[in-house]
Protein backbone atom coordinates (compact mmCIF):
# COMPACT_ATOMS: atom_id res chain seq x y z
CA UNK A 1 0.00 0.00 0.00
CA UNK A 2 1.45 3.36 -0.99
CA UNK A 3 1.52 6.38 1.29
CA UNK A 4 -1.50 8.35 -0.02
CA UNK A 5 -3.70 5.25 0.13
CA UNK A 6 -2.58 4.64 3.68
CA UNK A 7 -3.37 8.23 4.66
CA UNK A 8 -6.76 7.86 3.04
CA UNK A 9 -7.56 4.73 5.02
CA UNK A 10 -6.31 6.37 8.19
CA UNK A 11 -8.50 9.40 7.61
CA UNK A 12 -11.65 7.37 6.95
CA UNK A 13 -10.92 5.19 9.95
CA UNK A 14 -10.40 8.09 12.33
CA UNK A 15 -13.49 9.92 11.14
CA UNK A 16 -15.45 6.68 11.48
CA UNK A 17 -14.25 5.88 14.98
CA UNK A 18 -14.91 9.45 16.10
CA UNK A 19 -18.44 9.34 14.66
CA UNK A 20 -18.95 6.27 16.84
CA UNK A 21 -19.09 8.58 19.87
CA UNK A 22 -22.44 10.13 19.02
CA UNK A 23 -23.69 6.76 17.84
CA UNK A 24 -22.81 5.38 21.27
CA UNK A 25 -24.85 8.15 22.91
CA UNK A 26 -27.92 7.21 20.87
CA UNK A 27 -27.34 3.56 21.71
CA UNK A 28 -26.93 4.45 25.37
CA UNK A 29 -30.28 6.24 25.30
CA UNK A 30 -31.83 3.00 24.11
CA UNK A 31 -29.88 0.60 26.35
CA UNK A 32 -30.68 2.61 29.50
CA UNK A 33 -34.39 2.15 29.01
CA UNK A 34 -34.13 -1.48 27.92
CA UNK A 35 -31.90 -2.42 30.84
CA UNK A 36 -33.77 -0.33 33.39
CA UNK A 37 -37.36 -1.05 32.46
CA UNK A 38 -37.32 -3.86 29.89
CA UNK A 39 -38.94 -1.63 27.27
CA UNK A 40 -37.71 -1.79 23.68
CA UNK A 41 -38.02 1.89 22.86
CA UNK A 42 -38.41 2.68 19.17
CA UNK A 43 -38.97 6.37 19.89
CA UNK A 44 -35.31 7.02 20.75
CA UNK A 45 -34.66 8.79 17.43
CA UNK A 46 -37.76 10.96 17.71
CA UNK A 47 -37.01 12.06 21.27
CA UNK A 48 -33.51 12.95 20.12
CA UNK A 49 -34.93 14.90 17.17
CA UNK A 50 -37.41 16.76 19.36
CA UNK A 51 -34.60 17.65 21.77
CA UNK A 52 -32.63 19.13 18.90
CA UNK A 53 -35.65 21.14 17.69
CA UNK A 54 -36.24 22.50 21.18
CA UNK A 55 -32.62 23.56 21.37
CA UNK A 56 -32.88 25.19 17.95
CA UNK A 57 -36.02 27.06 19.01
CA UNK A 58 -34.41 28.39 22.16
CA UNK A 59 -31.09 29.22 20.57
CA UNK A 60 -32.10 30.60 17.17
CA UNK A 61 -35.76 31.62 17.37
CA UNK A 62 -35.73 33.03 20.93
CA UNK A 63 -32.11 34.14 20.79
CA UNK A 64 -31.01 32.42 24.00
CA UNK A 65 -27.32 31.68 24.30
CA UNK A 66 -26.39 28.01 23.83
CA UNK A 67 -26.19 27.00 27.50
CA UNK A 68 -29.66 28.21 28.62
CA UNK A 69 -31.16 26.93 25.38
CA UNK A 70 -29.59 23.56 26.01
CA UNK A 71 -30.67 23.41 29.66
CA UNK A 72 -34.20 24.40 28.67
CA UNK A 73 -34.40 21.66 26.05
CA UNK A 74 -33.11 19.13 28.57
CA UNK A 75 -35.76 20.17 31.09
CA UNK A 76 -38.56 19.93 28.55
CA UNK A 77 -37.39 16.53 27.38
CA UNK A 78 -37.17 15.40 31.02
CA UNK A 79 -40.77 16.49 31.48
CA UNK A 80 -41.79 14.63 28.34
CA UNK A 81 -39.95 11.52 29.56
CA UNK A 82 -41.80 11.63 32.89
CA UNK A 83 -45.12 12.01 31.08
CA UNK A 84 -44.36 9.14 28.71
CA UNK A 85 -43.42 6.90 31.62
CA UNK A 86 -46.49 7.84 33.61
CA UNK A 87 -49.14 7.99 30.90
CA UNK A 88 -48.00 5.45 28.33
CA UNK A 89 -45.72 2.86 29.91
CA UNK A 90 -46.99 2.44 33.44
CA UNK A 91 -50.54 1.60 32.31
CA UNK A 92 -48.96 -0.98 29.98
CA UNK A 93 -46.94 -2.63 32.76
CA UNK A 94 -47.39 -6.38 32.62
CA UNK A 95 -48.47 -6.37 28.97
CA UNK A 96 -46.53 -8.37 26.41
CA UNK A 97 -43.25 -6.95 25.13
CA UNK A 98 -44.79 -6.59 21.67
CA UNK A 99 -47.67 -4.37 22.91
CA UNK A 100 -45.22 -2.09 24.66
CA UNK A 101 -43.00 -2.00 21.59
CA UNK A 102 -46.00 -1.03 19.44
CA UNK A 103 -46.78 1.76 21.90
CA UNK A 104 -43.28 3.15 21.50
CA UNK A 105 -43.63 3.02 17.71
CA UNK A 106 -46.89 4.93 18.14
CA UNK A 107 -45.13 7.53 20.27
CA UNK A 108 -42.45 7.83 17.60
CA UNK A 109 -45.12 8.62 14.98
CA UNK A 110 -46.81 11.15 17.25
CA UNK A 111 -43.56 12.92 18.03
CA UNK A 112 -42.68 12.95 14.34
CA UNK A 113 -46.06 14.49 13.53
CA UNK A 114 -45.70 17.08 16.29
CA UNK A 115 -42.29 18.15 15.03
CA UNK A 116 -43.45 18.42 11.43
CA UNK A 117 -46.57 20.39 12.32
CA UNK A 118 -44.67 22.87 14.51
CA UNK A 119 -41.48 23.28 12.59
CA UNK A 120 -42.34 21.92 9.11
CA UNK A 121 -40.06 19.64 7.17
CA UNK A 122 -37.54 22.27 6.08
CA UNK A 123 -33.90 21.97 6.84
CA UNK A 124 -32.56 24.49 9.34
CA UNK A 125 -28.97 25.29 10.02
CA UNK A 126 -27.98 25.38 13.66
CA UNK A 127 -25.03 27.54 14.77
CA UNK A 128 -22.07 25.32 15.60
CA UNK A 129 -21.46 24.69 19.27
CA UNK A 130 -17.98 23.30 19.03
CA UNK A 131 -14.93 24.62 17.14
CA UNK A 132 -15.03 23.68 13.47
CA UNK A 133 -11.39 24.14 12.63
CA UNK A 134 -10.11 20.88 11.17
CA UNK A 135 -7.07 19.21 12.63
CA UNK A 136 -4.25 18.22 10.32
CA UNK A 137 -1.84 15.43 11.08
CA UNK A 138 0.49 15.71 8.08
CA UNK A 139 -1.72 14.34 5.26
CA UNK A 140 -4.65 13.31 7.42
CA UNK A 141 -7.38 15.88 7.99
CA UNK A 142 -10.02 15.45 10.67
CA UNK A 143 -13.02 17.81 10.86
CA UNK A 144 -13.09 19.76 14.15
CA UNK A 145 -16.69 18.88 14.93
CA UNK A 146 -15.93 15.17 14.72
CA UNK A 147 -13.37 15.54 17.48
CA UNK A 148 -15.57 17.84 19.57
CA UNK A 149 -18.59 15.56 19.30
CA UNK A 150 -16.53 12.57 20.22
CA UNK A 151 -15.07 14.35 23.25
CA UNK A 152 -18.50 15.39 24.53
CA UNK A 153 -19.92 11.92 23.97
CA UNK A 154 -16.97 10.22 25.63
CA UNK A 155 -17.14 12.52 28.67
CA UNK A 156 -20.85 11.89 29.07
CA UNK A 157 -20.52 8.14 28.71
CA UNK A 158 -17.69 8.02 31.26
CA UNK A 159 -19.83 10.08 33.64
CA UNK A 160 -22.65 7.56 33.21
CA UNK A 161 -20.39 4.61 33.84
CA UNK A 162 -19.09 6.22 37.06
CA UNK A 163 -22.63 7.11 38.11
CA UNK A 164 -23.83 3.52 37.73
CA UNK A 165 -20.70 2.07 39.26
CA UNK A 166 -20.36 4.20 42.38
CA UNK A 167 -23.31 6.44 43.20
CA UNK A 168 -26.08 5.38 45.54
CA UNK A 169 -28.78 6.24 43.02
CA UNK A 170 -26.89 4.56 40.19
CA UNK A 171 -26.46 1.35 42.15
CA UNK A 172 -30.13 1.45 43.17
CA UNK A 173 -31.03 1.79 39.48
CA UNK A 174 -28.91 -1.22 38.61
CA UNK A 175 -30.57 -3.18 41.38
CA UNK A 176 -34.00 -2.15 40.08
CA UNK A 177 -33.02 -3.18 36.56
CA UNK A 178 -31.79 -6.56 37.68
CA UNK A 179 -34.60 -7.47 40.09
CA UNK A 180 -37.33 -4.92 40.85
CA UNK A 181 -39.11 -7.09 43.41
CA UNK A 182 -36.05 -7.51 45.59
CA UNK A 183 -34.98 -3.91 45.07
CA UNK A 184 -38.35 -2.86 46.42
CA UNK A 185 -37.97 -4.88 49.62
CA UNK A 186 -34.60 -3.19 50.19
CA UNK A 187 -36.36 0.14 50.38
CA UNK A 188 -35.65 1.29 46.83
CA UNK A 189 -38.45 3.27 45.26
CA UNK A 190 -38.56 1.44 41.96
CA UNK A 191 -41.08 3.77 40.33
CA UNK A 192 -38.74 6.66 40.95
CA UNK A 193 -35.83 4.64 39.60
CA UNK A 194 -37.77 3.79 36.45
CA UNK A 195 -38.89 7.37 35.95
CA UNK A 196 -35.31 8.53 36.36
CA UNK A 197 -34.24 5.96 33.77
CA UNK A 198 -36.55 7.55 31.22
CA UNK A 199 -35.37 11.04 32.11
CA UNK A 200 -31.70 10.09 31.77
CA UNK A 201 -32.38 8.32 28.49
CA UNK A 202 -34.17 11.40 27.13
CA UNK A 203 -31.32 13.61 28.30
CA UNK A 204 -28.67 11.51 26.59
CA UNK A 205 -30.78 11.49 23.41
CA UNK A 206 -31.09 15.28 23.55
CA UNK A 207 -27.33 15.70 23.81
CA UNK A 208 -26.88 13.42 20.80
CA UNK A 209 -29.54 15.32 18.84
CA UNK A 210 -28.00 18.71 19.59
CA UNK A 211 -24.52 17.48 18.67
CA UNK A 212 -25.71 16.11 15.34
CA UNK A 213 -27.82 19.17 14.54
CA UNK A 214 -25.07 21.63 15.39
CA UNK A 215 -22.43 19.82 13.40
CA UNK A 216 -24.61 19.05 10.37
CA UNK A 217 -28.10 20.52 10.13
CA UNK A 218 -31.59 20.04 11.49
CA UNK A 219 -34.52 18.38 9.72
CA UNK A 220 -36.96 15.59 10.57
CA UNK A 221 -34.44 13.25 8.93
CA UNK A 222 -32.41 13.54 12.13
CA UNK A 223 -34.52 10.79 13.66
CA UNK A 224 -33.16 8.42 11.05
CA UNK A 225 -29.73 8.64 12.70
CA UNK A 226 -31.20 6.30 15.29
CA UNK A 227 -31.41 3.61 12.62
CA UNK A 228 -27.66 3.03 12.67
CA UNK A 229 -27.92 3.04 16.43
CA UNK A 230 -30.30 0.07 16.18
CA UNK A 231 -27.60 -1.80 14.29
CA UNK A 232 -25.24 -0.87 17.14
CA UNK A 233 -27.61 -2.06 19.85
CA UNK A 234 -28.31 -5.37 18.21
CA UNK A 235 -24.63 -5.93 17.58
CA UNK A 236 -23.58 -4.90 21.09
CA UNK A 237 -26.31 -6.81 22.86
CA UNK A 238 -29.46 -4.98 23.91
CA UNK A 239 -28.58 -4.75 27.59
CA UNK A 240 -24.88 -3.94 27.61
CA UNK A 241 -23.50 -0.42 27.89
CA UNK A 242 -19.99 -1.68 27.16
CA UNK A 243 -21.37 -3.57 24.16
CA UNK A 244 -23.02 -0.40 22.89
CA UNK A 245 -19.71 1.47 23.08
CA UNK A 246 -17.65 -1.17 21.29
CA UNK A 247 -20.33 -1.77 18.67
CA UNK A 248 -20.64 1.98 18.03
CA UNK A 249 -16.96 2.20 17.21
CA UNK A 250 -17.25 -0.83 14.93
CA UNK A 251 -20.34 0.45 13.12
CA UNK A 252 -18.94 3.98 12.91
CA UNK A 253 -15.76 2.67 11.36
CA UNK A 254 -17.49 0.37 8.86
CA UNK A 255 -19.87 3.18 7.95
CA UNK A 256 -17.11 5.70 7.23
CA UNK A 257 -14.86 3.28 5.39
CA UNK A 258 -17.75 2.03 3.26
CA UNK A 259 -18.86 5.55 2.44
CA UNK A 260 -15.28 6.53 1.64
CA UNK A 261 -14.48 3.69 -0.72
CA UNK A 262 -17.83 2.56 -2.06
CA UNK A 263 -19.84 5.78 -1.91
CA UNK A 264 -22.88 6.97 0.02
CA UNK A 265 -25.26 4.32 -1.32
CA UNK A 266 -23.23 1.43 0.00
CA UNK A 267 -23.20 2.81 3.52
CA UNK A 268 -26.93 2.12 3.75
CA UNK A 269 -26.29 -1.57 3.23
CA UNK A 270 -22.84 -2.68 4.27
CA UNK A 271 -23.04 -2.01 8.05
CA UNK A 272 -26.22 -4.07 8.28
CA UNK A 273 -24.72 -6.92 6.30
CA UNK A 274 -21.80 -6.99 8.70
CA UNK A 275 -24.18 -6.96 11.69
CA UNK A 276 -26.13 -9.87 10.21
CA UNK A 277 -22.91 -11.80 9.66
CA UNK A 278 -21.77 -11.25 13.25
CA UNK A 279 -25.17 -12.22 14.64
CA UNK A 280 -24.95 -15.56 12.86
CA UNK A 281 -21.95 -16.32 15.05
CA UNK A 282 -23.11 -14.54 18.23
CA UNK A 283 -26.93 -14.37 18.20
CA UNK A 284 -27.11 -12.48 21.50
CA UNK A 285 -24.71 -9.74 20.38
CA UNK A 286 -21.08 -9.22 21.30
CA UNK A 287 -21.67 -8.51 24.99
CA UNK A 288 -25.35 -9.32 25.41
CA UNK A 289 -26.70 -11.67 28.03
CA UNK A 290 -27.47 -15.11 26.67
CA UNK A 291 -30.91 -15.14 28.19
CA UNK A 292 -31.98 -12.02 26.36
CA UNK A 293 -35.31 -12.12 24.60
CA UNK A 294 -35.41 -11.77 20.85
CA UNK A 295 -38.34 -9.98 19.32
Amino acid sequence: MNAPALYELLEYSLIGLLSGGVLALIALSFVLVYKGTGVVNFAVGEVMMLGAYLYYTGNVLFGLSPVPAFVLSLLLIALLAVLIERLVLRPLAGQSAVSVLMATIGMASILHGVVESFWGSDTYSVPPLLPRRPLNFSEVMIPGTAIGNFAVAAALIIAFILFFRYSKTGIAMRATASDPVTACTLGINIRFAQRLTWVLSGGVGTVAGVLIASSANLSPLLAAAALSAFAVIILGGLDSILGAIVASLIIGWIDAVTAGYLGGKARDVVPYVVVLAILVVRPYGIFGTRTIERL
Partner: protein
Amino acid sequence: MTPELSESQRPSDWGGLSLSVEQVELRFGGIRALRGVSFAARAGEITAVIGPNGAGKTSVFNTISGFYRPASGRVLLGSDDITDTPVYGRAGLGLARTFQNIALFHGLSVLENIKLGGHHLMRSGLMSSLLYSKRAQNEELALRAEIERRVIDFLEIDHIRHKPVDALSYGLQKRVELARALAMRPRVLLLDEPVAGMNREETEDMARFILDVQEDWGVTVLLVEHDMGMVMDISSHVVVLNFGEVIASGPPAEVRRHPEVIRAYLGAEAEVAEEAVA
Protein backbone atom coordinates in the same frame (compact mmCIF):
# COMPACT_ATOMS: atom_id res chain seq x y z
CA MET B 1 -13.50 11.78 63.32
CA THR B 2 -15.20 8.76 61.90
CA PRO B 3 -18.23 9.62 59.85
CA GLU B 4 -21.52 8.53 61.37
CA LEU B 5 -24.96 7.66 60.21
CA SER B 6 -27.96 9.56 61.45
CA GLU B 7 -28.51 9.76 65.21
CA SER B 8 -31.82 8.00 65.40
CA GLN B 9 -30.28 4.88 63.92
CA ARG B 10 -27.89 4.11 66.80
CA PRO B 11 -27.64 0.47 67.90
CA SER B 12 -29.58 1.12 71.10
CA ASP B 13 -32.67 1.78 69.00
CA TRP B 14 -32.39 -1.38 67.00
CA GLY B 15 -34.22 -3.76 69.27
CA GLY B 16 -36.87 -5.99 67.80
CA LEU B 17 -40.45 -4.90 67.28
CA SER B 18 -43.44 -7.13 67.54
CA LEU B 19 -45.23 -8.03 64.34
CA SER B 20 -48.93 -8.81 64.30
CA VAL B 21 -51.17 -10.03 61.58
CA GLU B 22 -54.82 -9.39 62.42
CA GLN B 23 -57.77 -11.05 60.70
CA VAL B 24 -56.09 -10.95 57.29
CA GLU B 25 -58.24 -12.01 54.33
CA LEU B 26 -56.50 -12.44 51.01
CA ARG B 27 -58.31 -13.44 47.82
CA PHE B 28 -57.11 -14.19 44.32
CA GLY B 29 -60.27 -14.08 42.22
CA GLY B 30 -62.52 -16.73 43.79
CA ILE B 31 -59.74 -18.33 45.82
CA ARG B 32 -59.45 -17.41 49.49
CA ALA B 33 -55.72 -17.74 50.03
CA LEU B 34 -55.86 -16.49 53.62
CA ARG B 35 -59.02 -16.79 55.70
CA GLY B 36 -58.94 -14.43 58.65
CA VAL B 37 -55.36 -15.22 59.62
CA SER B 38 -54.22 -13.77 62.94
CA PHE B 39 -50.98 -14.34 64.82
CA ALA B 40 -48.24 -12.35 66.46
CA ALA B 41 -44.47 -12.62 66.45
CA ARG B 42 -43.28 -11.40 69.84
CA ALA B 43 -40.54 -8.81 69.95
CA GLY B 44 -37.05 -10.26 70.04
CA GLU B 45 -38.17 -13.88 69.67
CA ILE B 46 -38.07 -16.43 66.88
CA THR B 47 -41.47 -17.40 65.51
CA ALA B 48 -41.95 -20.01 62.78
CA VAL B 49 -44.83 -20.37 60.34
CA ILE B 50 -45.24 -23.95 59.14
CA GLY B 51 -47.83 -25.85 57.18
CA PRO B 52 -48.23 -28.21 54.22
CA ASN B 53 -47.63 -26.99 50.65
CA GLY B 54 -50.27 -24.50 49.56
CA ALA B 55 -51.23 -23.70 53.15
CA GLY B 56 -50.65 -19.99 52.59
CA LYS B 57 -47.22 -19.49 54.18
CA THR B 58 -45.80 -17.53 51.28
CA SER B 59 -49.03 -15.52 50.98
CA VAL B 60 -48.61 -14.49 54.61
CA PHE B 61 -45.04 -13.40 53.94
CA ASN B 62 -45.96 -11.48 50.83
CA THR B 63 -48.77 -9.74 52.68
CA ILE B 64 -46.39 -8.71 55.45
CA SER B 65 -43.83 -7.50 52.87
CA GLY B 66 -46.55 -5.53 51.10
CA PHE B 67 -46.62 -7.33 47.75
CA TYR B 68 -50.21 -8.40 48.38
CA ARG B 69 -52.88 -6.06 49.73
CA PRO B 70 -55.29 -7.94 51.97
CA ALA B 71 -59.01 -7.56 51.25
CA SER B 72 -59.45 -6.93 54.96
CA GLY B 73 -57.43 -7.13 58.14
CA ARG B 74 -54.30 -5.36 59.30
CA VAL B 75 -50.56 -5.83 59.59
CA LEU B 76 -48.93 -4.11 62.57
CA LEU B 77 -45.23 -3.46 63.02
CA GLY B 78 -44.81 -2.53 66.66
CA SER B 79 -47.83 -0.29 67.08
CA ASP B 80 -47.77 1.08 63.50
CA ASP B 81 -50.38 -0.09 61.04
CA ILE B 82 -48.37 -0.82 57.88
CA THR B 83 -51.16 -2.40 55.85
CA ASP B 84 -51.11 0.47 53.35
CA THR B 85 -47.41 1.30 53.44
CA PRO B 86 -45.74 0.71 50.05
CA VAL B 87 -43.20 -2.12 49.89
CA TYR B 88 -40.18 0.16 49.70
CA GLY B 89 -41.43 2.20 52.67
CA ARG B 90 -41.43 -0.82 54.96
CA ALA B 91 -37.64 -1.14 54.80
CA GLY B 92 -37.30 2.20 56.58
CA LEU B 93 -39.63 1.03 59.34
CA GLY B 94 -37.35 -1.90 60.09
CA LEU B 95 -38.76 -4.75 58.03
CA ALA B 96 -36.30 -6.92 56.10
CA ARG B 97 -36.70 -10.24 54.34
CA THR B 98 -34.94 -12.97 52.44
CA PHE B 99 -36.47 -14.99 49.63
CA GLN B 100 -37.14 -18.67 49.10
CA ASN B 101 -35.31 -18.60 45.78
CA ILE B 102 -32.17 -16.63 46.43
CA ALA B 103 -32.74 -13.09 45.20
CA LEU B 104 -29.24 -11.68 44.99
CA PHE B 105 -28.30 -9.24 42.26
CA HIS B 106 -26.29 -11.12 39.66
CA GLY B 107 -23.22 -9.43 38.31
CA LEU B 108 -22.62 -7.56 41.57
CA SER B 109 -20.05 -8.58 44.17
CA VAL B 110 -20.89 -9.87 47.64
CA LEU B 111 -20.04 -6.51 49.19
CA GLU B 112 -22.08 -4.55 46.64
CA ASN B 113 -25.06 -6.80 47.28
CA ILE B 114 -24.78 -6.37 51.02
CA LYS B 115 -24.31 -2.60 50.74
CA LEU B 116 -27.59 -2.37 48.85
CA GLY B 117 -29.21 -3.49 52.09
CA GLY B 118 -28.08 -0.21 53.62
CA HIS B 119 -29.47 1.79 50.74
CA HIS B 120 -32.46 3.10 52.66
CA LEU B 121 -30.26 4.28 55.54
CA MET B 122 -28.38 6.78 53.40
CA ARG B 123 -29.90 10.21 53.50
CA SER B 124 -28.11 12.01 50.69
CA GLY B 125 -30.46 12.66 47.83
CA LEU B 126 -30.19 12.28 44.09
CA MET B 127 -28.31 15.50 43.46
CA SER B 128 -25.50 14.92 45.94
CA SER B 129 -25.34 11.35 44.73
CA LEU B 130 -25.06 12.54 41.12
CA LEU B 131 -22.29 14.94 42.07
CA TYR B 132 -20.77 12.41 44.45
CA SER B 133 -20.55 15.05 47.17
CA LYS B 134 -18.42 14.90 50.32
CA ARG B 135 -21.50 14.07 52.32
CA ALA B 136 -22.48 11.20 50.08
CA GLN B 137 -18.91 9.88 50.27
CA ASN B 138 -18.84 10.08 54.07
CA GLU B 139 -22.15 8.34 54.35
CA GLU B 140 -20.93 5.63 52.06
CA LEU B 141 -17.79 5.15 54.18
CA ALA B 142 -19.78 5.01 57.40
CA LEU B 143 -22.15 2.46 55.97
CA ARG B 144 -19.32 0.35 54.68
CA ALA B 145 -17.47 0.43 58.01
CA GLU B 146 -20.57 -0.62 59.83
CA ILE B 147 -21.31 -3.42 57.40
CA GLU B 148 -17.76 -4.72 57.68
CA ARG B 149 -17.90 -4.75 61.45
CA ARG B 150 -21.42 -5.81 62.23
CA VAL B 151 -22.42 -7.98 59.30
CA ILE B 152 -19.50 -9.41 57.35
CA ASP B 153 -17.42 -10.44 60.36
CA PHE B 154 -20.51 -11.65 62.15
CA LEU B 155 -21.56 -14.00 59.36
CA GLU B 156 -17.99 -15.11 58.64
CA ILE B 157 -17.95 -14.08 55.01
CA ASP B 158 -14.79 -11.91 55.01
CA HIS B 159 -13.01 -14.13 52.57
CA ILE B 160 -15.61 -13.82 49.81
CA ARG B 161 -16.53 -10.16 50.04
CA HIS B 162 -15.14 -9.22 46.62
CA LYS B 163 -16.33 -12.32 44.77
CA PRO B 164 -19.21 -12.09 42.32
CA VAL B 165 -22.24 -13.71 43.98
CA ASP B 166 -22.81 -16.05 41.06
CA ALA B 167 -19.54 -17.83 41.87
CA LEU B 168 -20.63 -18.85 45.38
CA SER B 169 -22.06 -22.12 46.61
CA TYR B 170 -25.76 -22.28 47.37
CA GLY B 171 -25.23 -22.22 51.12
CA LEU B 172 -22.98 -19.17 50.93
CA GLN B 173 -25.43 -17.34 48.66
CA LYS B 174 -28.12 -17.89 51.28
CA ARG B 175 -25.75 -16.46 53.89
CA VAL B 176 -25.01 -13.40 51.73
CA GLU B 177 -28.73 -12.84 51.36
CA LEU B 178 -29.06 -12.94 55.15
CA ALA B 179 -26.14 -10.49 55.37
CA ARG B 180 -27.91 -8.10 53.02
CA ALA B 181 -31.05 -8.28 55.14
CA LEU B 182 -28.98 -7.56 58.28
CA ALA B 183 -27.34 -4.58 56.60
CA MET B 184 -30.85 -3.09 56.50
CA ARG B 185 -30.70 -2.91 60.34
CA PRO B 186 -33.94 -4.79 60.61
CA ARG B 187 -36.12 -4.81 63.69
CA VAL B 188 -38.19 -7.61 62.22
CA LEU B 189 -36.51 -10.15 59.95
CA LEU B 190 -38.59 -12.35 57.66
CA LEU B 191 -36.79 -15.48 56.49
CA ASP B 192 -38.49 -17.44 53.72
CA GLU B 193 -37.17 -21.02 53.92
CA PRO B 194 -33.65 -20.09 55.10
CA VAL B 195 -32.33 -23.66 54.96
CA ALA B 196 -34.27 -25.06 51.97
CA GLY B 197 -31.98 -27.19 49.83
CA MET B 198 -29.10 -27.10 52.31
CA ASN B 199 -27.16 -30.07 53.55
CA ARG B 200 -26.95 -30.96 57.26
CA GLU B 201 -23.84 -28.93 57.94
CA GLU B 202 -25.07 -25.82 56.11
CA THR B 203 -28.40 -26.09 57.91
CA GLU B 204 -26.68 -26.19 61.30
CA ASP B 205 -24.55 -23.17 60.39
CA MET B 206 -27.59 -21.22 59.31
CA ALA B 207 -29.54 -22.18 62.44
CA ARG B 208 -26.64 -20.96 64.55
CA PHE B 209 -26.51 -17.66 62.68
CA ILE B 210 -30.25 -17.12 63.10
CA LEU B 211 -29.96 -17.75 66.83
CA ASP B 212 -26.96 -15.39 67.06
CA VAL B 213 -28.85 -12.69 65.21
CA GLN B 214 -31.75 -12.99 67.59
CA GLU B 215 -29.53 -13.03 70.70
CA ASP B 216 -26.95 -10.40 69.74
CA TRP B 217 -29.14 -8.02 67.84
CA GLY B 218 -32.41 -8.54 69.64
CA VAL B 219 -34.16 -8.78 66.29
CA THR B 220 -37.59 -10.33 65.96
CA VAL B 221 -37.38 -13.27 63.54
CA LEU B 222 -40.31 -14.72 61.61
CA LEU B 223 -39.47 -17.70 59.45
CA VAL B 224 -41.20 -20.06 57.08
CA GLU B 225 -39.48 -23.42 56.94
CA HIS B 226 -40.07 -27.04 55.96
CA ASP B 227 -37.21 -28.47 57.99
CA MET B 228 -39.18 -29.51 61.08
CA GLY B 229 -36.13 -30.37 63.15
CA MET B 230 -34.70 -26.91 62.68
CA VAL B 231 -38.04 -25.18 63.34
CA MET B 232 -38.58 -27.09 66.57
CA ASP B 233 -34.97 -26.45 67.70
CA ILE B 234 -34.75 -22.71 67.29
CA SER B 235 -38.24 -21.22 67.50
CA SER B 236 -39.94 -20.19 70.68
CA HIS B 237 -43.32 -19.99 69.01
CA VAL B 238 -44.82 -21.94 66.11
CA VAL B 239 -47.85 -21.00 63.98
CA VAL B 240 -49.39 -23.75 61.84
CA LEU B 241 -51.34 -22.87 58.71
CA ASN B 242 -53.54 -25.17 56.67
CA PHE B 243 -55.78 -24.15 53.75
CA GLY B 244 -55.28 -20.47 54.58
CA GLU B 245 -56.27 -20.79 58.25
CA VAL B 246 -54.29 -20.88 61.49
CA ILE B 247 -55.01 -24.33 62.92
CA ALA B 248 -52.65 -24.19 65.87
CA SER B 249 -50.13 -21.94 67.52
CA GLY B 250 -47.96 -22.16 70.60
CA PRO B 251 -44.60 -23.41 71.84
CA PRO B 252 -43.03 -26.12 69.62
CA ALA B 253 -43.54 -28.97 72.06
CA GLU B 254 -47.25 -28.21 72.33
CA VAL B 255 -47.82 -27.71 68.61
CA ARG B 256 -46.09 -30.98 67.79
CA ARG B 257 -48.74 -32.87 69.81
CA HIS B 258 -51.72 -30.86 68.56
CA PRO B 259 -54.23 -33.26 66.95
CA GLU B 260 -55.10 -30.84 64.09
CA VAL B 261 -51.43 -30.53 63.23
CA ILE B 262 -50.89 -34.26 63.19
CA ARG B 263 -53.91 -34.62 60.93
CA ALA B 264 -52.78 -31.87 58.57
CA TYR B 265 -49.34 -33.38 58.18
CA LEU B 266 -50.08 -37.08 58.37
CA GLY B 267 -53.84 -37.48 58.32
CA ALA B 268 -54.51 -37.15 54.64
CA GLU B 269 -51.76 -39.61 53.83
CA ALA B 270 -52.85 -41.98 56.57
CA GLU B 271 -56.43 -41.96 55.30
CA VAL B 272 -55.32 -42.53 51.71
CA ALA B 273 -53.17 -45.42 52.90
CA GLU B 274 -56.10 -46.95 54.76
CA GLU B 275 -58.35 -46.64 51.73
CA ALA B 276 -55.71 -48.23 49.57
CA VAL B 277 -55.48 -51.17 51.94
CA ALA B 278 -59.25 -51.50 52.06
